[in-house]
């Protein structure tokens, strides 16, 4: 098995770029479902850097963390989408700027 010749830093830069794309999605979009997908983008960016560290340092801990992050993301998907459903049932909208009951 030939080891890869790509430096660890490239993976970290890619991870940073993907994370920032996720942050921009959360800040700029109004649709709650797309905000939810942007959060998934951020989780995956972190997963990528964890796996990169794990493979480059030869430590299994990084991939264990990725496993647990995936489990938490699955739980978050179930709860988050149930909240979106409950919100839509009460307010007839999924646009977060129209849900301003607690806005001062």
């Amino acid at each position: 098995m030939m080891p890869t010749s790509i430096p660890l830093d490239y993976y970290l830069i890619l991870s940073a770029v993907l994370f920032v794309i996720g942050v921009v999605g959360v800040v700029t979009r109004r649709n709650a479902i797309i905000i939810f997908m942007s959060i998934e983008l951020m989780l995956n960016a972190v997963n990528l850097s964890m796996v990169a560290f794990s493979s480059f340092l030869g430590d299994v801990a990084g991939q264990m963390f990725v496993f647990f992050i995936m489990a938490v993301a699955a739980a978050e998907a179930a709860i988050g989408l149930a909240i979106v459903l409950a919100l839509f049932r009460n307010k007839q909208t999924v646009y977060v700027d129209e849900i301003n009951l607690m806005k001062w």
Partner: protein
Amino acid sequence: MSLQSLLFTIFAIGAVASAVFTITRKNPVASAMSLVAHFFMLTGLYLTLQAQFVAAVQVVVYAGAIMVLVVFVIMLLNVGREANAEGPKSIRPTLAMLFAGILVVMVSSVIASHPTGRNQLHEKATEIGQTASIGKALFTQYLFPFEAVSLLLLAALIGAVILAKRHVSETQP
């Protein structure tokens, strides 16, 4: 250019492009499909890192389970294309993108100076990425977090059912 560099370039460009597509499409279904493509690109990146188990779980859990949930909710709510917000257009999204761009340039310039100095995968990388070593660590060193996560999933299951359940009194006319 070696095969590894070629694969990394393809998957990295694909991942960034599909992520940008995800947050820019007006149609939620198009966003969801771009996100599926993004997950597959990440799977390829995990394989370049010799993490076979994580790559398989990525496809099964993210591209499979989570995206089915998302697409199902989009279908259930019947949300169409996103309408533009009424009222004066806020300057905040533009500012957010500006600062995000500055942040990514700063982080990249710091990392591009090779602070880690690591250019080769660890010699044990292939062995670590396999299911055997993951499973061994999961049921010995990480047994308690594993059990805690199973409890978390159970709580999420019950919580989702309660949140999404239509109350009996609401259905009465």
